[in-house]
């Protein structure tokens, strides 16, 4: 029977309308010594107002430099069952489509070898198994790999790529997010498991600008589906929306960020040359509006949480690129970016921070992409378009 701790402070977090992680840990703590000590240590942290986890060091399975994150308690005598409490990242599947058979097996393996606590999914997108000791790492890896699963990324490596459900369930997808994610994962196994970057690198792929995977805020490289043609308008359906009570002027036209729509009460018009493909109107009037023409993606770089500099959103590097298997043009572009980062990046400097430090001009020159108006992140930034002497002579 696991030890039971008094947790008056954590109990406060069970009150209120939201699901509570404390309730969940308590459930696991009824069966698992690890989860019980985890709860005990956490209560102590709340009481003492400080964390008791140490992090890093030597952890992993043979041949891998990532996928396991070392956690150690700094109070091993008081909480011996969490003296080691490592996190295991399992590479999630594109779009997070699991079979219930796998989920059952995963839980059984984790009850046997770990704390029973999981996190589906971590911010990076991995299936996260929270808390096990060092001896259990190889057996856990064997259990998963024999079923066709692999560890995810961690450390100074490519992190587990993730994507929205894309064409599997969503009619707005302009690209096959699932296949792109799978292809990236297979192509760059070494980059994921054998850390050789200055710091982490994340890919997230969204089928359209609705960006259900939040790629714009969470990925060093955001791949967002878009289209080249016009938005086809079905005026009869527009009339239907109006009849059903939609205020088209207020809800659609006035909220178009590029102010390229107009509506006279009968006809909805779009000046497609000014449309920035934000998806607002299409998401609101799905039956009336539809993108047409060539489909592809916009490639953006640079979002990250605060560290060396504050949080950033990704910004456009390539406004439009075709995304069809085997994605060679895209992959070559990424390799050039990594080369730039490898050449100039400091330890623990994300690629976006490096670009801000060195300037867009050098970055674009290095990767061989022409400066384009879409790359301008905000007005009044230092200009990165300069004519060279050779340009001036033309």
């Amino acid at each position, binding site marked *: 029977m696991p030890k039971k701790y008094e947790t008056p402070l954590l109990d406060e977090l069970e009150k209120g309308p939201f699901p509570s992680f404390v309730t969940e840990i308590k459930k696991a703590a009824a069966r698992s010594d690890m989860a019980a000590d985890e709860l005990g240590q956490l209560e102590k942290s709340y009481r003492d107002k400080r964390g008791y986890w140490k992090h890093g060091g*030597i952890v992993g399975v043979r041949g891998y430099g990532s996928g396991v994150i070392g956690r150690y308690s700094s109070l091993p005598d008081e909480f011996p069952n969490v003296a080691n409490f490592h996190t295991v990242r399992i590479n999630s599947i594109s779009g997070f489509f699991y079979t219930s058979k796998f989920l059952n097996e995963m839980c059984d393996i984790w009850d046997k070898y770990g704390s029973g606590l999981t996190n589906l999914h971590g911010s990076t997108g991995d299936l996260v198994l929270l808390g096990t000791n060092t001896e259990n790492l190889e057996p856990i890896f064997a259990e998963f790999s024999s079923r066709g699963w692999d560890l995810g990324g961690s450390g100074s490596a490519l992190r587990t790529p993730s994507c929205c459900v894309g064409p599997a369930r969503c009619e707005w997808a302009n690209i096959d997010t699932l296949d792109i994610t799978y292809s990236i994962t297979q192509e760059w196994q070494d980059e994921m498991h054998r850390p050789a970057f200055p710091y982490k690198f994340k890919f997230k792929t969204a089928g359209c600008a609705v960006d259900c995977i939040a790629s714009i805020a969470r990925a060093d490289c955001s791949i967002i589906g878009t289209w080249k043609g016009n938005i086809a308008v079905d005026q009869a359906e527009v009339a239907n929306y109006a009849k059903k009570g939609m205020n088209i002027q207020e809800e659609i036209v006035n909220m178009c960020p590029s102010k390229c729509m107009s509506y006279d009460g009968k006809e909805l018009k779009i000046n497609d040359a000014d449309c920035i493909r934000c998806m607002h109107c299409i998401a609101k009037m799905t039956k009336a509006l539809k993108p047409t023409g060539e489909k592809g993606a916009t490639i953006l770089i640079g979002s990250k949480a605060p560290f060396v500099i504050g949080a950033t959103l990704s910004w456009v590097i390539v406004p439009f690129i075709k995304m069809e298997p085997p994605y060679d043009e895209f992959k070559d572009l990424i390799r050039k970016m990594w080369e730039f980062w490898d050449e100039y990046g400091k330890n623990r400097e994300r690629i976006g921070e490096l670009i801000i430090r060195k300037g867009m001009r050098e970055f674009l020159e290095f990767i061989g992409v022409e400066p384009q108006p879409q790359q301008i992140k905000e007005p009044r930034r230092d200009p990165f378009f300069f004519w060279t002497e050779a340009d001036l002579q033309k």
Partner: protein
Amino acid sequence: MEKEEVKKKIYELVEKSTGKKKLKSSDIQKTISAEAGISRDEVKDALRDLIDEGKLIYTYFGGSFVEIPPK
């Protein structure tokens, strides 16, 4: 250059900097490829062998490093 020789060079480099400076995989690739006049891919390949054999391991201290495993 023979792969075994590259492996030896890598191991010596890591051994030499143990206790002084933690080396990243890219440090090793840059140093050895420049010293031995070989491509970074060759260095990477030899490093992969050393890791797979357990002679070297990856560690994490705010970033990922390559080190000799503790005895």
